[in-house]
């Protein structure tokens, strides 16, 4: 059963076709990789999926319990409410806020108490705030960040900042999670740890995940299917072993004279 269908998605920046005619299809519960050389347009695809950029043309459809939503004309926050959350390649945490606040803010959209309660700190306020803290700490525990809940995000080491981005995205309670290079800058041990974590999260949160990653060991290990992007176009699609053997993919990477695999 599909959860996301992308049809002929195109984005032009002036004359540059950052993404052109991309078709993607993700099934419920899948873990799919999106790879490609630098500048291939991977992040741009994420920005289109999350409404940060408006597509030049094409459609994005999200399927959820019998209803389908067109995402291509929605604002980022409505897309998030519809069930798509993401992390950013160049970490975008709320740097001057605490770890706890970073997570709590992502839970705001599911909050019930209104302006009046927030001004007068009514009973509804304190009950929901307590729940918020509890839930946040639960999520933080998964990536072992709970003991740092009062630290400012900017003071976390790089790896933990990446982890916090994932927790924050989870806090938005998505059904589709987009991870943009979650392992960037991590050493092999950390990457292995992260790989395991992503699998665990997918199972326990019942998620569909689309993952951009340059670390091929990670991609090949956990992705069930992979899309390869080059110059904004999908040049290959298939299982990890099919992709490894694909000539066009090898050319695309060798043409760049960087061998990631």
């Amino acid at each position: 059963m599909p959860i996301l269908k992308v049809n002929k998605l195109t984005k032009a920046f002036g004359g540059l076709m950052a993404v052109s005619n991309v078709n993607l299809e993700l099934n419920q519960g899948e873990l799919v990789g999106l790879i490609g050389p630098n500048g291939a347009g991977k992040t741009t695809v994420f920005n289109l999926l999350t409404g940060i950029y408006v597509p030049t043309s094409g459609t994005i459809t999200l399927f959820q319990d019998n209803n389908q939503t067109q995402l291509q004309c929605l604002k980022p926050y409505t897309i998030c409410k519809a069930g798509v959350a993401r992390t950013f390649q160049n970490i975008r945490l709320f740097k001057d806020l605490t770890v706890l606040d970073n997570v709590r803010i992502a839970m705001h959209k599911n909050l019930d108490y209104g302006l009046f309660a927030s001004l007068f700190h009514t009973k509804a306020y304190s009950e929901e705030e307590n729940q918020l803290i509890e839930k946040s700490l639960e999520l933080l525990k998964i990536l072992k960040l709970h003991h740092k809940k009062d630290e400012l995000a900017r003071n976390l080491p790089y790896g933990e900042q990446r982890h916090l981005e994932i927790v924050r995205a989870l806090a938005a309670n998505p059904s589709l999670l987009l991870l943009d290079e979650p392992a960037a800058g991590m050493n092999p041990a950390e990457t292995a740890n992260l790989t395991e974590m992503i699998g665990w999260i997918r199972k326990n949160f019942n998620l569909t995940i689309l993952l951009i990653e340059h670390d091929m060991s990670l991609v090949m290990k956990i992705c069930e299917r992979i899309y390869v992007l080059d110059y904004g176009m999908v040049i290959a699609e298939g299982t990890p072993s099919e992709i490894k053997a694909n000539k066009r993919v090898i050319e695309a990477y060798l043409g760049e004279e960087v061998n990631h695999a």
Partner: protein
Amino acid sequence: MQKLLGSNFLKKAIFLAATFGLVQLLIVTGVINPFIMDTLTTICINIILAVSLNLITGFTGQFSLGHAGFMSIGAYTCTIITLRVPTTLGFITGLLAGAILAALVGAVVGLPTLRLRGDYLAIATLGMAEIIRIIFLNLDITNGAAGLFNNNQYVNWFWLFLFTAGTVVLISNFIKSSHGRACISIREDEIAAEAVGINSTKYKVTAFVMGAFFAGIAGSMHSSYFYFIKPDLFGFLKSINILVIVVFGGLGSISGSIIAAILLALISTSLQSIPELQMVIYAAMLITIMLFRPQGLMGSKELSLSLFKKWSSLIHRKNGGEA
């Protein structure tokens, strides 16, 4: 947890009641003379203005140079109504009407302009305040450049305290709620905030409208206490003065705004004896502060008991080391 919250609330209530009672006592006994009362009133009004602007600029990160415009809407509305209904009830009605009108104008102006970023928003809000001022200059009901006289002074220490403390408590409460955090997240990173489901337009406008509402209250109190208003009182310079209090105290620090409002009022009172140099010194001070402490007195920290403890333990340690 519930209990802790309760005791915290009690502490605050006792502190507020004590402050009110003490000042009331000083007024009754005549220690606070009319001159000191003027300064006290200015401080309170400036606290309301600064804390409400801090919500917009310090917490939500939206740069506004037009706060005096909202203040003037409150001031004129309240005066026009109290001139016709010269009772305390008339004053309170005028004050609320002024605040609501200011909030409405805030919504009308905010919706289209809050899409703008940084400097552009600053200039747009400046333009808005200028337009409001020019409208007041040209209306009959506002008596043009000559301004309006209010015959009665309805603002006394009770109202002053009620509205100042009310503003501070409500805005602090808001900031500590999830809605307040939504505003702060916009300041931190608007794109990330939207990506986690925060409707940034909604919260920017909310902050703007709330800020305008309280600025309207400040304007009403100003008009009622000081009897006289005219459009020039609410020009560009007034907006700047409010912003200076906020920046001097620290963007995103409510206690900073309060401290700065007090300090700046004291400084300007003491400079009143040399009127020809008052503004020059004020300007020089401004430049010096920005050059040496651009984050303001408090940064984005709040004055709190734990901070006091930290300071005192630091001092103790220092003293201990010397002994």
